[in-house]
């Protein structure tokens, strides 16, 4: 690769990295540079810029190389693709990261890679980059390393020493889709790596009998990504799969990425418009799983033929199927039930509970506290408001349906 400029490499290797949705830089270990080094981390993540696709730029998200021996149909970097190839040297990645960081463009590095020669060779090259940032340049910013499928447990352990977050992509929600579209990937070894990362993380948090902490391991935990719409898996199966991943491997996040057309596509996958609304509904359902006490089966009761309603959000869809539980007395209902009211978020519920300790809440208070009253009012009762008849009305769902839109001329 003589003659290719750093700028061209950056163009190729960031273009190759854009299909990974993960961008988080939050959580993890509190660090700063007051006692030497460069950078800080540990607070809430910062999004330094946004691109017109609505995704944030928090980390320098690049591939170490887009050469790859795997042939995953959905991926632009698969071995059979004719895309232009490039490879960064260790120093190039390190310099780009540090110089971008000093100008306050980024929170740190998110490094992934195509697989060259072998999984272990690739992984150990990536670890070298992270080690150089940490040990030679005393970089205290955020590092997210994508682990390579089938990399050895020792290399995963070493990666966890330098990275704040590790991730490995399950890629598709069902094993058979992985085997069909990514024939070199094996779902069982991907899960085994996730299990290892969970156990290493837990072991690092336990104090030994002398009170010393065990060696560090990815303090910001692990995440994964699933591509939506590249196979025929329905939303309920996707959520069940996500729920198993959360409970089994204590993932911080499951990212859902609407399958998006790639240049130089494979015949195995037709190019379609990415299902952005479906992706959005899945994220909403994912939030219900993690913060609202819903199970995947409960969310499924609001789904149609296994898929989430695209017209209304999954919590509202669930509530419309369980009208017998409503209207809820806001002054008496438990936290668990308040969380199930459409239009009430976690913060709203906490504020309601804090405020109702002092006095009885009235309808006007809901607005001030920040509830989305238009949505919530059909499901609650409190002084100043009674949703007469609404809850039983057969036309209730139409209250929430999107307004008809004027068709645009072509």
């Amino acid at each position: 690769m003589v003659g290719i400029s750093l700028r061209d490499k950056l163009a190729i290797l960031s273009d190759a990295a854009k299909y990974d949705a993960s961008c988080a830089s939050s959580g993890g270990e509190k660090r700063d540079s007051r006692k030497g080094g460069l950078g800080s981390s540990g607070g809430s993540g910062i999004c330094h810029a946004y691109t017109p696709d609505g995704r944030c730029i928090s980390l320098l998200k690049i591939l170490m190389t887009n050469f790859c021996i795997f042939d995953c149909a959905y991926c632009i970097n698969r071995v059979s693709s004719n895309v232009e190839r490039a490879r960064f040297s260790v120093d190039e990645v390190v310099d780009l990261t540090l110089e971008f960081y000093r100008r306050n463009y980024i929170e740190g590095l998110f490094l992934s890679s195509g697989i060259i020669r072998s999984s272990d060779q690739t992984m150990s090259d990536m670890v070298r980059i992270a080690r150089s940032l940490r040990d030679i340049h005393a970089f205290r910013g955020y590092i997210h390393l994508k682990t390579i499928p089938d990399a050895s447990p020792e290399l995963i352990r070493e990666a966890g020493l330098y990275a704040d977050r590790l991730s490995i992509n399950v890629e598709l929600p069902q094993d058979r889709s992985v085997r069909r579209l990514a024939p070199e990937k094996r779902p069982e070894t991907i899960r085994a790596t996730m299990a290892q990362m969970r156990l290493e993380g837990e072991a690092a948090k336990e104090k030994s009998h002398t009170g010393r902490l065990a060696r560090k391991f990815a303090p910001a935990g692990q995440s994964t990504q699933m591509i939506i719409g590249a196979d025929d898996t329905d939303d309920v199966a996707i959520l069940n799969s996500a729920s198993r991943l959360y409970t089994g491997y204590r993932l911080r996040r499951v990212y859902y990425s609407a399958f998006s057309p790639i240049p130089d596509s494979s015949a195995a996958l037709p190019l379609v418009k990415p299902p952005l609304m479906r992706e959005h509904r899945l994220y909403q359902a994912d939030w219900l799983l993690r913060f609202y006490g819903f199970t995947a089966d409960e969310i499924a009761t609001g789904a149609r033929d296994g898929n989430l309603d695209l017209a209304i959000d999954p919590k509202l869809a669930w509530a419309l199927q369980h009208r017998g539980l409503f209207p809820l007395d806001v002054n008496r209902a438990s936290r668990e039930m308040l969380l199930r009211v459409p239009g009430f978020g976690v913060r709203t519920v906490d504020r309601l509970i804090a405020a109702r300790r002092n006095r009885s809440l009235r309808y006007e208070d809901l607005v001030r506290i920040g509830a989305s009253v238009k949505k919530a009012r059909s499901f609650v009762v409190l002084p100043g408001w009674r949703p007469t008849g609404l809850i039983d009305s057969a036309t209730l769902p139409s209250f929430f349906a999107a307004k008809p839109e004027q068709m645009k001329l072509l």
Partner: protein
Amino acid sequence: MIYAPSLPERGTFVAWRNVARLLMSHHVPPDDIDWSGRPGLFTPRAIPEAVGPHNVNVTKNFLKLSESVVWNSDPERFAFLYKALWRLRLRDGDPLSQSDVLGRRLHLLAKSVGRDIHKMHAFVRFHELPSPGRRRFAAWFEPEHYILEPGSHFFMKRFADMDWMIATPRLTARFEGGVISYHTGGRKPPLPADASEELWATYFANIFNPARIKMNAMRSEMPKKYWKNLPETRLIPSMLAEAEERVARMREAGASASRPGAAIISTRYRNSMEKIEENPKNLKDAKRSSRQCRRCSLCEMATQTVWGVGPENASLMIVTDQPGDREDLTGELLDGEFGAALRELTTGAGFDFSEIYVTTAVKHFKFRPEDGRRIPLAPDRAEIEHCLWWLDMELAFVRPRLVLALGTAPVIALISDGNALELRRGAFETGRHGGRVMIAGAFSGKRDRAAKTRNGAFEVEAVNEFSRAFQYLKTHV
């Protein structure tokens, strides 16, 4: 209006707190103070210098809120805060609650400050300045509120090893040699071209996916008022203009022919991958083969296949129902509480644990997620029967003289008949493989729970059963 305190631009919070404390200690009502900072028609009274007779105590919450509100550019911010202090003293409702009109107002002011600080941390863009020694950087930023002072701490912690300057219209922060100082602000300073800025633009343009335009999401997080100081936003119009065409080109191009040489690489790699061997020659090959097992659907739920452990020439084989939660994660049978309990109890009965072969009827963990935990579920008959493929292989290679069936699934697997188990406890029966099977009851049911709720009676029964197995092996050579 009787008092008209004027507050400085720097150290505003401390200054406001001192004045408010003095006025409150003299029990001055809010209506007697003009916080606007503009001189009125009448000469105001001097702020008392000595502390008055009234105690001024505030909660931590109030301090936290006011520490944020004072930086807001709303001219009424100081008056609102003082009004809240006053109401706290009079015990007039809760002026800090989100459901109070004043409280809501204060929270919104604080939130707006917090957001502005956050955006400053995100959108300050440093340019490198020439410097012979320590590296120097400078930035120009236009915040909505007076946040340079509270917003600078973040940069002090993050960029301690370089000198930097952030200029804003009202105030300029300089960090030199590790010391921060604030100076009067003004106009945008000249910022030299920076080589990294071009690379940053390259990155911005290439990380963008033209197939998914979501302008609203972008504008809500990166409001247009900040754009003029963000170099990369200049690229947005052309990125948008080209997006549709790029997607159209992708669609027209459709699937491409495979890159020459790719097929060879794929074939070579796929041939090197582990495969299921139909006729493994020994226990080790069988184990390797089992890792790819997809005979039933459990493999998709579980992490991995968990194979038996023990010597290939063991006289005793113990079969339990399925791996437990931890064993599923580590892939090692007996890693965990159950393994420890089994070791202890068999040793108590006279066995050398390392001479026993232990395995499971079903080799994948079956569970359902509930409240963030995985609750084991009993495998069904079909799953047990699919897994006989592997259990029979283990029986054939190990050829134990006695098999101990711990629980329902192992009995079904080994003898086919799982009925009336209570009555058959302790019985020796003939297994499908033709050898002797002892039905042990102590561990039946959920093995993780059995291991956890160890009590006297259970242990006695278990040791008793293992002792009978021990005796059997001794007397039946």
